[in-house]
């Protein structure tokens, strides 16, 4: 407790520097900040004594736009928040509006949604792994990761024509029927991917440079995570066995067996291990799901004009980066009265200051990488 008080005091006097301290500006145009994140570092030699994140460079006012669009019109906008996991954003939004309308997507739609979302989780984690390793100095994994991600994007492209901002789902179900050979493609990817994960593991897991750069760097305890709202792999790496897919299942997750990986130390290495295990688990979910995709309609009974009864709803999903929540207030018209998006990256980034204090400047890069932020989502 005394620790936090002291920290608050330093943060308050952020502009007052000690004799040996100076302020270093990092970003917004810096390759390892993964976008336009600007960090002001107060440093004493090589030690970081305090930080301030300056964000908002990518702010587009998504929540304001939502109030001026119909429910369907707003759906493509959510893809542009976390643009490396567009499908997860779309799933969260569509499910929230469905709950607001009190309709449910048909079983077939739910299963296909689950498959695509898990593929998206793998793709998102691959981007994280490649860039995180690159930041720390390992160049090779990036090429391998992008190679596998390409296979996933090809599946998306075949499915809906788009690779990045897919707008793959529709409120009430799916926009498109799965193409011929969809299961085959997913299966081929998943079968092959096991070997690929081993390649990353060979490159990094036992690598002494990797371990040296990540062990005991950016430690967060479970209590810190909960207090700071950090979720997703960050929370799990701190030893909290909690995943919304298990705690409050959505889509078709209740039908599949998978493990929630957890870490013990809550450091950067543990977060790496947790995400690597999530790659394996997502692969297993996909393999289970393609075994038995129910037949039937892909779109539930939703009107062309959506007028949800007045009221409000909150729904959240386990996006690759953490809890992605939507809070929508309806006034009974075709446009939402208010849409609030709870972005995992924004909330997780808040833990950055806690993680980085006392570390070296070089660790800042490792910690930004391990947070796995996407600035499109931080700034919205």
């Amino acid at each position, binding site marked *: 407790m005394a620790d936090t008080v002291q920290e608050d005091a330093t943060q308050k006097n952020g502009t007052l520097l000690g004799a040996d301290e100076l302020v270093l500006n990092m970003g917004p145009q810096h390759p390892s900040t993964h976008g336009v994140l600007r960090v002001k570092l107060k440093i004493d030699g090589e030690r970081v004594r305090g930080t301030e994140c300056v964000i908002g460079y990518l702010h587009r006012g998504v929540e304001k736009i939502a109030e001026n669009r119909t429910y369907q019109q707003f759906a493509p906008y959510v893809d542009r928040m976390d643009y490396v996991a567009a499908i997860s954003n779309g799933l969260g939004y569509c499910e929230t509006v469905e709950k607001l309308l009190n309709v449910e997507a048909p079983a077939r739609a739910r299963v296909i949604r689950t498959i695509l979302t898990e593929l998206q989780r793998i793709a998102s984690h691959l981007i994280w792994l490649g860039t995180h390793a690159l930041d720390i100095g390992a160049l090779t994994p990036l090429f391998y990761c992008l190679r596998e991600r390409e296979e996933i994007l090809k599946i998306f492209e075949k499915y809906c024509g788009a690779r990045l901002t897919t707008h793959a789902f529709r409120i009430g179900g799916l926009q498109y029927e799965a193409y011929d050979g969809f299961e085959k493609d997913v299966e081929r990817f998943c079968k092959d991917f096991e070997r690929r994960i081993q390649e990353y593991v060979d490159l990094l897991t036992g690598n002494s440079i990797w371990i040296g750069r990540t062990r005991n760097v950016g430690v967060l305890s479970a209590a810190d995570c909960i207090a700071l709202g950090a979720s997703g792999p960050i929370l799990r790496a701190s030893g909290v066995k909690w995943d919304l897919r298990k705690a409050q299942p959505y889509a078709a997750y209740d039908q599949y067996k998978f493990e929630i990986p957890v870490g013990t130390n809550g450091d950067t290495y543990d977060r790496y291990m947790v995400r690597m295990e999530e790659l394996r688990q997502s692969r297993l979910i996909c393999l289970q799901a393609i075994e038995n995709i129910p037949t039937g309609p892909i779109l539930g009974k939703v009107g062309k004009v959506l007028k949800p*009864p007045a*009221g409000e709803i909150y729904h959240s999903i386990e996006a690759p980066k953490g809890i992605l929540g939507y809070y929508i207030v309806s006034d009974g018209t075709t446009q939402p009265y208010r849409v609030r998006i709870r972005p995992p990256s924004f909330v997780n980034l808040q833990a950055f200051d806690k993680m980085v204090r006392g570390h070296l400047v070089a660790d800042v890069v490792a910690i930004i990488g391990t947070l796995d932020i996407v600035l499109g989502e931080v*700034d919205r």
Partner: protein
Amino acid sequence: MAEESKPSEKPEIKQPDAGTPPAPKSVSAAASPAAPKPAPPPPKPPPAVQLPLDNELVRRYRERFGAAILDAVEDRKQPYLVIDSAQLHEIARYSRDEEKLDLLEDYTAVDWPRREKRFDLVAILYSFPHNIRLRLKIPVALGEHPASIVDIWPTANWLEREIFDMFGIEFSGHPGLKRILLPDEWQGYPLRKDYDILQQDTAWVRENLGIDSGQ
């Protein structure tokens, strides 16, 4: 839009008691053999989505805080409490420590310009031990300074800054309340209903970007 919504929203919260859901059902059952015309009513009944809530949890809150719990509602099976802003800090602390709602999942606001208390602060709480969510709604008047809950949930720090940035609600006791997404000098609060979607701080745009309009 806001003007229309206000009257439609208020009565609905109170109405459902009157037994709206069963009534239309019987109407449709009786009417369907006679003529297909009265069929439209069936899609209507769902609007009875807000129900007054009185469970163990609400009773504990009421016992503890009495009149500060202004209302307890269940909307689409999700519970929320409307609470008095004067007691926000105590209720927040009680929620975390006694009810084990240990995660502040989200904290945001909604603008209702026609209401006496213009804003609703909305805190979405989640409990890891009980796996439940509870929303707290805190009506706040324009110019009122609700207590900051950063000392209870550090995650509220940026969330309150964002509320301040977008709605102009100032929290008393916040360690460093300033804009977070918009530039510090920006004038206006974009998520208020009277802020048009095309509106911008023209002076700021001209001075800092060297253009007349960002649109």
